[in-house]
C-alpha cells in the first residue's frame, strides 16, 4: 500500500512539475483575487472578521481550481484504466490524490498568505503565524479530502467543470465556518488572541469524518 501510494504520488508530482498545470494557476488566481477584493471592498487594509473571510474565500476558490483539474488527466488519458489494471488497493489512489492536493494547497498558501499580508492585511502577521499555520493545516486537510472525493465524483460526468464546484462548495461550508472563525481573532488589529479550541475541534472532527466517508466510498467510484 505505502509503496503504491509513493509511486502514485511520485507520478502526480512529476506530472505537475512538468506541465505546471494547477499550482501556478491557483497561486496567480489567489493573488489576483486579493486585488479584486481591494477594489470591490474599497479597502486598503483589512483585519479581524473581514481579513479572515477574504483569506478563506480566496483559498477556497483557488483550491476549487485545483480540484477541478485533479483527475482530468487520469480520466482523459487512461490513467484510471491503467490503475485498475494494476493489482493494487484502490484506496492507494485516494491517499495519493489527497496528499497531492494537500501539497498543492501548501504551495498555494506559501504564495497566497505572504501576498495577503503584503497587500491587504492591516496588523502584522508575525505573531499570528504559528497559530495560523495550524488552522490552515486543519482546513487544508478537509479541503483535500472533500476536494478529492468531489473531483472523483465529477470528473467522469459531462459537466465536470460545473459539478465540481457545485458539489464541493456546500460540503466545504463547515470548513469555512471553522477556518474563518478560528482565523478572525488571530488577525484582529487590537488584542489578537488565539483561536477558540472549539473551532479547531470542529475542523478536526470534520476532517476525520470526511476522511472515513471518502475511505469507505472511493472504491465505488473506480469500478469501470
Amino acid at each position, binding site marked *: 500500500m505505502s509503496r503504491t501510494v509513493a509511486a502514485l504520488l511520485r507520478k502526480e508530482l512529476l506530472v505537475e512539475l512538468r506541465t505546471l498545470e494547477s499550482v501556478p494557476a491557483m497561486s496567480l488566481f489567489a493573488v489576483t483575487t486579493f486585488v479584486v477584493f481591494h477594489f470591490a471592498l474599497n479597502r486598503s487594509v483589512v483585519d479581524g472578521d473581514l481579513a479572515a473571510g477574504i483569506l478563506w474565500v480566496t483559498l477556497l476558490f483557488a483550491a476549487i481550481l485545483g480540484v477541478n483539474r485533479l483527475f482530468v488527466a487520469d480520466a482523459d488519458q487512461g490513467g484510471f484504466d491503467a490503475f485498475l489494471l494494476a493489482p493494487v488497493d484502490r484506496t492507494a489512489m485516494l491517499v495519493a490524490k489527497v496528499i497531492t492536493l494537500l501539497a498543492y494547497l501548501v504551495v498555494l498558501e506559501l504564495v497566497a498568505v505572504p501576498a495577503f499580508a503584503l497587500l491587504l492585511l492591516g496588523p502584522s502577521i508575525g505573531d499570528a503565524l504559528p497559530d495560523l499555520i495550524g488552522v490552515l493545516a486543519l482546513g487544508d486537510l478537509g479541503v483535500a479530502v472533500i476536494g478529492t472525493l468531489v473531483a472523483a465524483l465529477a470528473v467522469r460526468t459531462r459537466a465536470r467543470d460545473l*459539478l465540481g464546484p*457545485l458539489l464541493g462548495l*456546500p*460540503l466545504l*461550508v*463547515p470548513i469555512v*465556518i471553522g477556518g474563518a472563525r478560528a482565523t478572525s481573532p488571530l488577525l484582529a488589529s487590537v488584542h489578537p488572541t488565539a483561536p477558540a479550541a472549539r473551532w479547531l475541534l470542529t475542523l478536526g472532527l470534520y476532517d476525520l469524518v470526511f476522511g472515513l466517508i471518502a475511505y469507505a466510498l472511493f472504491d465505488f*467510484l473506480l469500478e469501470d
Partner: protein
Amino acid sequence: MYGKGLRALSIATVAAMALALSLVFFYAPLDAEQGFLQKIFYLHVPLAIVALCGFVLGALLAIAHLRTRDPRWDMRSYVAIHMSLIFGVGALITGSIWAKGSWGHWWVWSEPTLVSFLIVFLLYATYQPLRFAIEDPERQARYASVFAITAGAFVPLNFMAVRLASAYVHPRVLGSTSNLPGPMALTFLVSLAAMALLYATLCKFELTAKHTRAQLRALRRRLLGEIPDTQARRPRSAAPTLQPGATVGTQAASRTAL
C-alpha cells in the same frame, strides 16, 4: 404488486391530514406572542423534519444499493431524495414566510436551523444535475449512491457546525416539544405524523408510477414483437428507469446482459 396498499395508505394520509388541520385550527390555542401566525409552525417544522429524515433515508437506501447492486434500491433512494427536495422547497418557503411575519425579514441569518437547511438544500439541489450528467445507467446509479451517502452524512454534521457558529443561542421554540404546552405538543405530533404519511404516500405513488411505466413499456415491446433491448432509445434522464420486466427472477439476467 407495487400498487398494493396504496389505497389504504392514501386514505390514512387524507384522514391524518384532515385531523391534523382541524387540530391546528380548532384545538391548538393561539400563541400568546405571535397569535395566528404561529400556526405555520405546524406546517413548517414537520415539512423540514420529514425532508431531513428523507435525505438520511435516501442515504440508507443508497447504502443498500451499493451493497446489493440491485437497481431497485437506487430507485428508492432517488425517490426518497426527490420527494425530500420537494418538501424542502416547502420548508424553505414556509420558513421564509414565518420569518417575515415574526421577525420582519424574509431571511434571517441568526436562525441556525434555517441556515443549515439552506446549505443542505443547496447540496441536494446538485443531485439531479449529477445524475443527468452521467449517461451510463449503471454508473449513474453508483455515483448517485456515493453522493447520497456523502450528503446524508453531511446533514447532521452541517447542523452541528452551523449551530456552533450562531453567535448567540436562539431561543429554541422550534423542534423540541418539551417546552410546548400540552395541546400544542399534541397538535404538533399529529401534524408530524400526517406529514410523514404524506411523504410515504407520495414516495409510494412515484415508485408505483415508475414500475407501471416500465411494465407497460415491456408489454408494448412484446406486443410489437421487438427484441427486448435494454439500452436502445433510452431517453437521457436524471431519474433511474427500471429495465423492462425487472422482477426478481430476471434481475440477475438483465444485469449480466449489461
